[in-house]
């Protein structure tokens, strides 16, 4: 604005209109900047805070700041564009300020070709006299609009809020590394004489986790050991604060263990992919073998399955057919998983092994059936051709089921009763019920039996 001509000099009226237009354009720009820039700056300040607390990464920060800045500039542009005054508007303002009777308006809008040149010259002379009365700084000062004040004040409030609240919220938002969090808990525990041992172990674990060269198995082993210690300590602990600390540590270790096992799985998968293992969800003859290397989380499941299989073999299952059990494609894999990582302390290992052997044989056949269920099965007795998976002369066979883990005392009771189930058959309902959700065949008295069984390859065609 300071660059505009000295108002005391005689300015040609046309250039005065241009100057007034420029001043008004600057006013419109300032208005838009004052309205839009403060919220943008407040937003960026908030993002800086989030970046400082490591809540967002560098790339996200740069991208978000760039986007916000870009959007802000776009908003300024879109707001300013329709507010840029026309020459007629500027001329009208000049007329108002100078007391002219639409001299500037006429001069700025009239087509010189259509009017008499003498008249135009006369008009220009008159307008030039009026233009002397105009001083741009005095007559067209910038006055911020109400919205501008609101925007600036609102943004300042937000920025101040972030400034004061940020230090309080920072610990909550800061995503500290695992080893630091473990170390923090360990330090707290170290203050309690009872928990010093666990604290030392936790510190050692933190050091291991921090060390990228330390093998994952070692870390995981250490985590499990500490978890055991914590579990034992939790049983003995009476002090509420100590219990809380132990809970914290247990939770933290639980999370750490999951991370470790996940990373272990990933590594195994990577290895598998590198070795060229078959990646398919279709059952194949050697699928069980290819999955043998998998372990970890499937371990406990395998144990439970083995128990259940053992029970079923012992005659608890009403549909139990040891030969056909192996036709389930999932079961052998789980059993094999168990076999690949034997637990010396686990009972029923031998039975499980036997079953696994049987399942493996069954799996070979079953896999072929599953690949094309409507094709005649190979190497199967002619009578078997009449049944699909899960069907049989005696009812359902090889059905899938969900294992249910009962509480220890109930399980013991059930097991005890089931052991004597043959003698006390019908004394207790619980003993008869298999630990699965296999639907019992509906018993309909006098129901007509199906007279002719259709071979499965014809079912689709005939029906």
């Amino acid at each position, binding site marked *: 604005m300071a660059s505009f001509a000295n108002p005391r000099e005689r300015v040609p009226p046309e250039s005065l209109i241009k100057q007034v237009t420029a001043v008004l354009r600057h006013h419109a720009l300032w208005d838009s900047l004052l309205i839009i820039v403060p919220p943008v700056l407040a937003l960026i300040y908030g993002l800086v805070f989030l970046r400082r607390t490591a809540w967002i990464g560098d790339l996200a920060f740069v991208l978000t700041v760039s986007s916000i800045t870009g959007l802000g500039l776009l908003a300024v542009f879109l707001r300013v564009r329709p507010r840029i005054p026309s020459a*007629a508007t500027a001329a009208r303002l000049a007329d108002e300020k100078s007391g002219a009777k639409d001299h500037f308006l*006429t001069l700025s809008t*009239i087509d010189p070709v259509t009017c*008499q040149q003498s*008249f135009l010259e006369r008009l220009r002379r008159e307008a030039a006299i009026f233009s002397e009365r105009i001083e741009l700084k005095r007559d067209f000062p910038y006055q911020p609009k109400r919205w501008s004040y609101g925007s600036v004040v609102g943004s300042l409030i937000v920025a101040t809020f972030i400034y004061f609240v940020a230090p309080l919220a920072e610990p909550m938002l800061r995503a500290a590394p695992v080893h630091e969090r473990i170390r923090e808990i360990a330090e707290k525990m170290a203050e309690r004489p009872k928990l010093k041992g666990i604290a030392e172990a936790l510190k050692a674990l933190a050091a291991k986790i921090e060390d990228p060269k330390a093998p994952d198995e070692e870390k995981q082993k250490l985590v499990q050991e500490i978890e055991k210690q914590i579990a034992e300590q939790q049983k003995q602990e009476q002090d509420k604060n100590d219990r809380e600390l132990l809970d914290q540590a247990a939770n933290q270790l639980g999370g750490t263990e999951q991370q470790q096992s996940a990373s272990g799985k990933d590594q195994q998968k990577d290895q598998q992919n590198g070795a060229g293992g078959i990646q398919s969800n279709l059952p194949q003859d050697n699928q069980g073998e290819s999955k043998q290397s998998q372990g970890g989380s499937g371990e406990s499941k395998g144990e439970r399955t083995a128990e259940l299989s053992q029970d079923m073999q012992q005659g608890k299952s009403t549909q139990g057919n040891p030969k056909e059990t192996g036709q389930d494609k999932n079961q052998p894999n789980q059993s094999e998983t168990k076999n690949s990582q034997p637990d010396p302390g686990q009972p029923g290992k031998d039975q499980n092994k036997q079953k696994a052997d049987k399942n493996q044989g069954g799996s070979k056949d079953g896999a072929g059936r599953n690949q094309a269920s409507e094709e005649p099965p190979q190497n199967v007795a002619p009578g078997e051709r009449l049944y699909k998976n899960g069907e049989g002369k005696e009812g359902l066979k090889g059905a899938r089921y969900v294992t249910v883990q009962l509480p220890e005392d109930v399980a013991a009771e059930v097991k005890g009763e089931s052991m004597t189930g043959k003698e006390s058959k019908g004394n207790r309902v619980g003993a008869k019920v298999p630990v699965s959700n296999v639907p019992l065949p509906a018993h309909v008295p006098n129901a007509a039996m199906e007279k002719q069984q259709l071979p499965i390859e014809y079912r689709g065609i005939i029906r």
Partner: protein
Amino acid sequence: MEPEQFQDVFQRLEAEVQKVIVGHNDVIRKVLVAFFAGGHVLLEGVPGLGKTLLVKSLSQALGMTFKRIQFTPDLMPSDIVGTEVLADTNGRREFQFKRGPIFAHVVLADEINRATPKTQSAVLEAMEEKQVTVFGESHILESPFMVLATQNPIELEGTYPLPEAQLDRFFFKLLVAPPAPPELREILRRTTGTEVADIVKVLPEDGGKLFKEMMLLVRQVMIAPPIEDYVVRLVHATQTTSQNGGQASVKQYIRFGSSPRGAQSVILGAKGHALVDGRVHVSYEDVGKVIFSALRHRIILNFQAEAENVSSDQIIAEVIKQVARD
């Protein structure tokens, strides 16, 4: 011709008429503006306000021929435009056209609403065509030609109100108001004494040529497109038939809005006013000065307006409020 010369002539004419007519400065100015714009004026006011004297004084100051026609119900068109009469010339008898009083530069049609529509239409045709046709022969009227008609807003019995189409042919309709007490005192002083005002002829002998130059100058005055656009929007706002016409508050009282002639009158009147003001361009102020005179007789009010005693001037004032300058 230079604008200063126009201003000078105009001001001298005003001054001469004001020697006789006390007050009514605005009416005098507008009559002169209409005269230089080439239009006719309808003066409305109660009897005894000096309407006839104003027109007479104006014609004297202009130095042009002046005729007065007192309109009565038995007045015939031939009484105005003239007729063929049998005349004896050199022993031969032949029909000769006897010019009526319409053949003058300034014609005063006094109480025009008292004549029958047939007679009114004869005058109004002459106003528009600036010629009359008698027995198939056309006769061109004097140039410049101006009709100043008067009508009385009271005593409406036995009158024939001018049809809307005829009213549209008047450039301005001016309301002659009763004089204020100081003006009345001055009127008494001038008319009840021995002093007699002598009106001096302002235009030279060949006044017609000068008059035409002045008329041309009026049309050369510049008008900015935004002002022109403003006039268009004002006139458009009075029109009820157009979709984007005036707002409901205005439309509810209007039967017919202004015609394009109304916009022409506003622009030309504003140009004349600008010249009188010493400018060569029209301002919004000029438009505001003439818009009532130019549009009040072109806006035809409906029954609701009459029932609620709403005048055309009120409607125009409302329109001006509603229409923004930008």
